[in-house]
């Protein structure tokens, strides 16, 4: 479902379509492609009472056949290629892929014979959530962006701070 890279406008249209379908009820399947499992701990906290995923209409499911969204962590080790592709293909469309964690986004582990480094090499990723690990709040924001309930803020951030003040958003 992911259009070829660079077509942000098409992606936005797609997001609107998905938001109409998924906005109120979304089933998430997590996929660990070789992470250190701290991202998984943060993801697991989402279901705990403090963050409570289910009040927003999101649910975890182990079966890809029932899933709408694939939440991928880990640097995509090469040994996991087949399983990742099979999981992605087993999900019925429309489906969304969210990569989360610094490893999955290409940091920490460069590409080498054992590791792709970037989940986007194997799966078509729709939303990227940085963090190491991403806090549950960041994950909630990312999921909200993925279903179109929240607006993306990253394009507007510059990470350039003023001379003497704290914070650095423009």
């Amino acid at each position, binding site marked *: 479902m992911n259009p070829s890279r660079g077509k942000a406008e098409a992606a936005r249209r797609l997001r609107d379509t998905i938001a109409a379908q998924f906005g109120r009820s979304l089933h998430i399947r997590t996929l660990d492609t070789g992470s250190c499992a701290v991202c998984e701990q943060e993801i697991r906290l989402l279901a705990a009472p403090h963050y409570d995923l289910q009040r927003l209409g999101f649910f975890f499911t182990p*079966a*890809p*056949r029932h899933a709408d969204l694939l939440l991928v962590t880990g640097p995509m080790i090469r040994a996991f290629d*087949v*399983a*990742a592709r*099979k*999981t992605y*293909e*087993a999900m019925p*469309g429309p489906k969304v892929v969210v990569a989360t964690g610094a490893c999955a986004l290409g940091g920490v582990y460069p590409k080498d014979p054992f590791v792709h480094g970037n989940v986007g090499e194997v799966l078509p990723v729709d939303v990227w959530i940085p963090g190491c690990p991403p806090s549950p709040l960041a994950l909630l924001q990312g999921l909200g962006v993925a279903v179109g309930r929240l607006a993306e803020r990253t394009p507007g951030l510059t990470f350039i701070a003023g001379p003497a003040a704290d914070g650095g958003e423009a």
Partner: protein
Amino acid sequence: MNPLDILYGAGGAWLAAAVTGLLAGSWRPGLRACCGLSALAGAAATGAGGWSLVYGDTRVVAPGPATITGGPLQLQMTSLAGVFVALLGIVAVAIALYVPRYHEPSRGTGVYLAACNLALLACLAVLAAGGMVTFLVSWETMSLACYLIILRHPRSGETARGAFWFLALSEIGFLLVVAAFVIVSAKTHATELDVIAARGHLVPGGWRAAAYLLALTGFGFKAGLVPLHVWLPEAHPVAPADGSAFLSGVVVKLGTYGIALFAFRLVPAAGSWPGLVTMGAGAVSAAIGILYALRERDIKRFLAYSTIENTGIIVTAFGAAMVFHAYRLSALSAFLLIAGLYHVANHGCYKTLLFLEAGVVEHATGTRDMDRLGGLVHRLPRSTVIAFVGTLGIAALPPLNGFVSEWLIFQGLFQGFRTGSHLTAILIVLAAATLGLTGGLAIYAFVRGFGIPYLGMPRTPKAAAAREPGQPVAGPALLAVACAALAVGAPVMLGALSRTAHTVTGTSLGPLLLPGKLTVIPAHTNFSAFSPTYLTVFLVAACAVPALIYLAGRPRAASVSVPVWDGGMVSFRPRMQYSAMTFSAPTRVTFDALYRPSVSVRRASDDDPAGRSGPVHYEAQVTPVFDRYLYRPVIRAVEWLADAIRPMQSGDVNLYLLYVFLVILLAYLLGAV
């Protein structure tokens, strides 16, 4: 023209087929000729049986040619035997259609076919016997012919053992049956079955009971009542598929025919306890049969134990009919007799079908072990469909015939409260509960028996190599059609059987069984009702609803076809599927006390000094309870007795002369007295 003339024709054709088989069995045309004659005879027998069901009152006694005993060969065609004769006919036709593609023409096949047709003839003679001697001679001929059938492939000690168990238990049963017949014949001073039945009141109560118990045990050996059943799982796997089919489909039913003959015609009991004993024996057989079936990997042993289960169901129905008769509830008694006979016909059809299909599987893959099969639905599609029909029937699932007959039996048993005696009612309820357990376990067992070999992926290359062309299809297909016909045409069948019941018990059910054209009620209008025809139509229509929904609301987007979700594994191996033994593991755990499995586990790491891991061997053996605790002691006692008597045969001439002298002395003394 009466059924007996048709039977003469059928008998003659089978005799001709036997001779043809013996002489010309080594050539393919000879084989086909033999099978053709056999099929003709089968069709004639079906016709005769059906005729005698429809025109139930036809009962002709015709003195035939003289037998070796000097008396006339007495034949008659009763309507009780009518069901069995019709079943015999249909099974014969199916097997005759099956044999040409299954057996290779050879000398051994010729002898085998001769034995088969002789056995068919002997079965016909048993069913058409009008006199005691005819019955017994035909019975023994049938046993011997079946022994030859089992010995078709004497390539291993296993075959000899299976055949020997069959013969030994047949002979013991025959002895008891002879004793039973001798008792009733001596007391009524007659050898014709009709006369014995008419003079039944001359037999005093104690002798009646003894005769009935002897008959129950003697025929129980043949029918397969527990604990007299041990020959079934030994003999069925080693016999060729059509031989096993014949054994389970017809020969075992003849045992139940014998029980019904004694229970309803010759020595109908005044008290209820013979019926209760019969019912109890049947219920126990049913439960134990299916429980042992769940531990079998060999398809034929599994089906053999299932035969024991179904015999138990039939005998339970007959026993309950006897109980109701003793309490003067003649409508219910007739109803359960009808139900039992209907189950005889149904089981004969689908069990024969399943054995023939087991033969096809063995022929195509070379193995009978369920854990080595799998995926046959893709390789043997027609056989799978036919086997599926048989499985639906035997698991008693609507809309097929097994469901109808088991429904009838249950409805009859549920009305045990009408007897008025608390003890009897409780015992009948217990029998019904046992049959309920059996029914549930039967579904479980046959999901396993159909799913593991036919569905899924092939577990071994042998299973993957199975090919459809050249496999026999016509015979099993005929039986599948018969199963469906027995289901949808249940009202017709029940109408015919109610005429049989009228002839046998003197009670006419008529509107108490079939109030409308298509509805069946269990002998009382206020209990329950059910229509097999409407049920079939409804189920077929219900299957059409999802199809219609799909067609109407078909998704417009292109659909993608991806492999089955297997957890993302890189290579999914067929051995990762359910195996037959793991599927039935819950019963092993629950009924551990019955199976008493002896488990041995050997780990390669036990032997290795460094404790390195390696293959683990797991072996679980069900304790052969009846063999060890019933038969072995009897065999040991007989051997001990023989050893004790052996000194008499010392070989010493002087001792023998002493024996002669003593006997002469005894004769003088007796003469003087």
